[in-house]
């Protein structure tokens, strides 16, 4: 008998609490998922599809739903994975096996002599960075190119190549200091003296 009473008391309690939660679920309903935007902001927006999702946003949505790992984006690199793991509180993982190698930032270049003006690359470019019309030569707007390589495959005459962005004094970065070496150990070219000039 007492067991029955106990069970019914617990059941009653559960019922009361359950209905409270049920009410709260309706009252505090959340629309949309603002986290997707945050994830998307971290992704590099190359829209390259190397993560196997059609673009960065779908990948962001997949991460937010918990379906995708956070280490599938090679253009975002190690830094990107770190940022995602920070944002989401998920464990950091190194970049997935097949996308281990981080590529140098590069842009697509069309060999304009070979271009036949088929517009296939224009249709493939996810960020409209290729200019041109049917039967006209096409050209890449370099500052807009994300280096996603999606235009290479469709080209019927293989006239598109990736060219790494050159290092210039403007985009050069100071390197991490060498800790164990005294800076004086750096080697120097011989001093240009008058004697050297005669030679």
């Amino acid at each position: 008998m007492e067991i029955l009473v106990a069970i019914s008391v617990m059941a009653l309690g559960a019922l009361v609490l359950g209905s409270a939660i049920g009410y709260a679920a309706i009252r505090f309903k959340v629309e949309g998922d603002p986290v997707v935007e945050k994830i998307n902001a971290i992704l590099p927006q190359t829209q390259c599809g190397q993560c196997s999702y059609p673009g960065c946003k779908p990948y962001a949505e997949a991460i937010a739903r918990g379906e995708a790992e956070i280490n599938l984006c090679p253009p975002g690199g190690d830094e990107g994975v770190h940022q995602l793991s920070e944002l989401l509180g998920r464990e950091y993982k190194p970049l997935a096996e097949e996308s281990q190698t981080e590529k140098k930032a590069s842009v697509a270049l069309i060999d304009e002599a070979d271009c036949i003006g088929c517009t296939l690359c224009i249709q493939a470019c996810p960020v409209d960075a290729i200019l041109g019309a049917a039967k006209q030569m096409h050209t890449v707007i370099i500052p807009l190119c994300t280096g996603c390589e999606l235009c290479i495959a469709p080209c019927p005459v293989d006239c598109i190549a990736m060219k790494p962005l050159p290092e210039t004094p403007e985009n050069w970065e100071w390197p991490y200091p060498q800790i164990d070496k005294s800076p004086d150990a750096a080697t120097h070219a011989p001093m240009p003296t008058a004697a050297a000039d005669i030679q």
Partner: protein
Amino acid sequence: MTAYLFLIIGAVLVNNIVLVQILGLCPFMGVSKKLETAFGMSVATTFVLTLATGSCFIIDHYLLLPFGFEYLRTLAFIVTIAAVVQLTEMVIARTSPVLQQTLGIYLPLITTNCAVLGVPLINISHRHDFVESLLFGMASAIGFSLVLLLFAGIRERVEAADVPRPFKGSAITMITAGLMSLAFMGFAGLNR
């Protein structure tokens, strides 16, 4: 009044729920990586713990004791706490989605945070009345928040330190927690 003061000092410092009673270690280790998340967790736990002690006291005093269901205490407390945590989660999801995302799995984890179950049970065993229970719950939560934030501060620093590889990550975190616990032993005897 002095009794309440000693109760609070006792719960926050001398018998700190994490470093002296060694309760609630899961969030202590898990959510202390970043100061921001630690702060969120502190707020959430303080809220839940205070609420949980209050509701558990009411359940115990007006439901379990009159009917002689003391043996259902653990079960009833767990159910109550689970419900309170669920409510908290919904409120947070509505009001601060980023906090909800950063707390990730840790918010539901408060349910199984032994501190949250432990404090109401300690309350019962110490025969605290309602006000004392609430105070004790809140003070314990403040103690938890305090050490969680301090721990997060230290961890952020240690994260950037040149820790030997075998000790990187959890190992050095455990050692740090141990040393903090050691330091907290200094408070022993202050509440008498």
